[in-house]
């Protein structure tokens, strides 16, 4: 083990650059998947004929595939059918589509958990369907969704590491390059990478727990 060598200035800078890419990709994918997932989840809850069914099938398919395979699709397979994306965009699109399917399911089941009686009461009080969803279902459903959505974001941040298969220069990718320089760097570098992931994700999970206690 060569701790001083492993943590040389250049190595640390290189790894931190990777960490920056990891955080950036995760951030963009979180925003995109949240928007896409909320919209599809709400549309599925509203049981719009045809639209909800098609979305349901799509979401079930994507949710039940490995993310690794979806990344292979966005980067290696899509050019085959005429859609060529760069490494960065492939990673973002793959992550966003997969996590959006997960979030869609969280949103749908969160909204469905609001008792039907409330919807009926609101409708018979003269609210339109959209008003009922907006004023009655969403505010309550949202509270129940926050903890699972935050854990989904933690998964997303961890899942960015899978973009190593398409050579995205993120944290895992860069640390593997540093390890390849010298065998004795392996354990110190892996420990550093673990700590970096842990700190961000643990902070997120603490935040989720606080929200849960406040709203639960």
């Amino acid at each position, binding site marked *: 083990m060569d701790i001083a060598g492993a943590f040389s200035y250049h190595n640390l800078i290189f790894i931190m650059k990777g960490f920056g890419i990891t955080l950036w990709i995760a951030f963009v994918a979180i925003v995109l998947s949240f928007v896409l997932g909320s919209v599809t989840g709400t549309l599925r809850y509203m049981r719009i004929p045809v639209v909800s069914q098609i979305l349901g099938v799509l979401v079930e398919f994507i949710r*039940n595939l*490995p993310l*690794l395979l979806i990344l292979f699709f966005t980067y290696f397979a899509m050019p085959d059918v005429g859609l060529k994306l760069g490494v960065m965009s492939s990673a973002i699109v793959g992550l966003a589509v997969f996590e959006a399917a997960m979030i869609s399911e969280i949103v749908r089941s969160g909204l469905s958990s609001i008792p039907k009686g409330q919807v009926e009461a609101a409708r018979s009080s003269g609210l339109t369907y959209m008003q009922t969803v907006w004023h009655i279902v969403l505010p309550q459903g949202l509270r129940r969704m926050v903890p699972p959505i935050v854990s989904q974001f933690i998964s997303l941040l961890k899942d960015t*590491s899978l973009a190593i298969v398409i050579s995205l220069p993120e944290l895992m990718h860069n640390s593997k390059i540093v390890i390849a320089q010298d065998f004795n760097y392996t354990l110190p570098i892996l420990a550093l990478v673990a700590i970096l*992931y842990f700190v961000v994700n643990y902070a997120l999970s603490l935040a989720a727990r606080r929200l849960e206690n406040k709203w639960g």
Partner: protein
Amino acid sequence: MLDISIFTDHFGIYMKGFGNTIWASVIALLGSFALGTIIAVFRISSVKPLRWVGTAYVEFIRNIPLLLVVFVFYLGLPSLGVTLSGFVCGTVGLMVYTASFVAEAIRAGIMSVPSGQTEAARASGLTYMQTMRHVVLPQAIKIVIPPLSNQFINLVKNSSILGVFAGFDLMYYGDQVASKTYATFDTYIFVAALYLVLTLPLSFAALQLERRLAKNG
């Protein structure tokens, strides 16, 4: 259009990968269930050091990527003089990673049974083991099964990590077929179909089970 001959011509290769994916999933499933149960018992134990070990395991492993866990076995162990195959590293990594989620699900289930029931059972003269068997576990299982079945579906999907480490699973062989036929899109569509053959019925069964438990509870 989709070229079916890619699947039929390489049927043997696909099936080899499919079989190894199932094999790795079953081993990791059994292993993570056993390890996760032990960690859960540690987490609710009245012995402080055990509780610390259990909590540290769950909090740490849950917050790092699966890929990193496998790297520790695949790159970390060789630097200590132990070299294992990609299949073994991937499967063991998957087991260690999933165990943290299993432990958390089991702990949450057991904690959901009010402690007054345990106290009442103990006060009625039941031993600790009897209390667990007849009072706590039958109720906890209903709470535990839905999250646990979701974890196992995740496990099957996550087994694709073996492909990164030349672990001879479906992902790995899919890659082989793609580099042979150059028909990347079609090749991966069949890989996707094979994964869905495994995960869709599992998801459906999990949903049915959840509904049935909800009705009876």
